[in-house]
């Protein structure tokens, strides 16, 4: 078996491991607890807001859905349909999906798409689900950091290997080591990324599992003076006809 192929199979097995499930069960305690305490508190005060509960519940559901997608895509016999996808459109839709939960956490979103890009060949649903999961983890983490600005940038830029689509904040707690340690520890400890988040950061590892299944990699990335996590989407000669 070639080394690359072996890596893919290993990644798939990793995605299916109970560690990711443990990470999600830790993560999902937060929205459930928020709903329980909010329900009790609003009953006492008499100011129940159904939209608040709806947003939190939908956030939990989309996290579970992304986990399911990661597993489905990782299965050996799954056929993955790759299609030409616009990065700008994906980032725009990601921002739309994150809008409500960002509001709950007091985080503002900013789309920052530099220039025009050729479409990339990828699995649209998978890429978007991974960016949304990633966004949820960062939105949750931002208010607990020492940031002056609670702003999440959804950005893209060119790099040597293709186009990077990522999520960035004005915070220096992102390092390759943080991500590396997190990957080693998730599912084994409650807080695999202590410098970044108080929770299990499940959204980051779900994104990782989906991207692994698509043979893409989540990496620590910089965008101007911002720090974050991004995925490199390599250009493909198959799409040159479309863009010329």
């Amino acid at each position: 078996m070639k080394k690359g192929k072996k890596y893919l199979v290993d990644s798939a097995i990793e995605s299916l491991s109970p560690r990711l499930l443990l990470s999600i069960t830790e993560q999902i305690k937060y929205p459930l607890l928020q709903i329980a305490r909010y329900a009790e508190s609003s009953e006492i005060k008499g100011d129940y807001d159904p939209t608040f509960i709806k947003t939190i519940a939908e956030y939990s559901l989309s996290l579970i859905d992304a986990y399911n997608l990661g597993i489905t895509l990782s299965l050996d016999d799954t056929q993955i349909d790759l299609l030409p996808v616009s990065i700008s459109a994906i980032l725009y839709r990601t921002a739309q999906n994150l809008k409500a939960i960002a509001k709950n956490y007091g985080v503002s979103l900013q789309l920052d798409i530099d220039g025009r890009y050729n479409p990339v060949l990828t699995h649209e649903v998978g890429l978007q689900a991974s960016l949304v999961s990633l966004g949820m983890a960062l939105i949750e983490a931002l208010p607990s950091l020492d940031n002056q600005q609670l702003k999440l940038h959804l950005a893209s830029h060119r790099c040597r290997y293709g186009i990077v689509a990522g999520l960035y904040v004005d915070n220096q707690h992102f390092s390759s080591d943080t991500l590396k340690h997190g990957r080693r520890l998730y599912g084994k400890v409650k807080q695999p990324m202590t410098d970044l988040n108080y929770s299990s950061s499940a959204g980051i590892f779900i994104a990782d599992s989906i991207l692994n299944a698509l043979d893409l990699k989540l990496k620590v990335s910089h965008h101007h003076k911002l720090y974050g996590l991004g995925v490199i989407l390599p250009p493909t000669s198959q799409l040159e006809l479309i863009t010329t």
Partner: protein
Amino acid sequence: MKHKPNLLLIEPDKILADIYRSALVKNQYNVVIVSNAQAGIYAVDKLLPDLIILELQLTKHSGVEFLYELRSYSEWQNIPVIILSMVNFSEFKNSSNILFNNLKVKAYYHKLTTSVSELLEIIQNNIAVV
């Protein structure tokens, strides 16, 4: 005029913090909420709270680190601290002596099983005996 007790809540989750804040303010407490241990130490210095409610699972420095720092100052030895944490107490069974004796924690509550009304009762009891 009756003195409103000063509470310091160290809670990293913004949504939970907002929920607790509204319940505490409604019950006539002055509440300062911070999201991490470093901000907690600054807040103690500024506020000199009547009670600290502490989560252990924080970003960067943990709640235990906060406690060590807090108790390293002689003037803050007697500020009562109760833990309200996502971490179940069973995980601290072997080191409960350190928490309760060395770090002078008054009580430990699991956040998942402590309702808002129970928390209000706990606060009232712990402030009353200061």
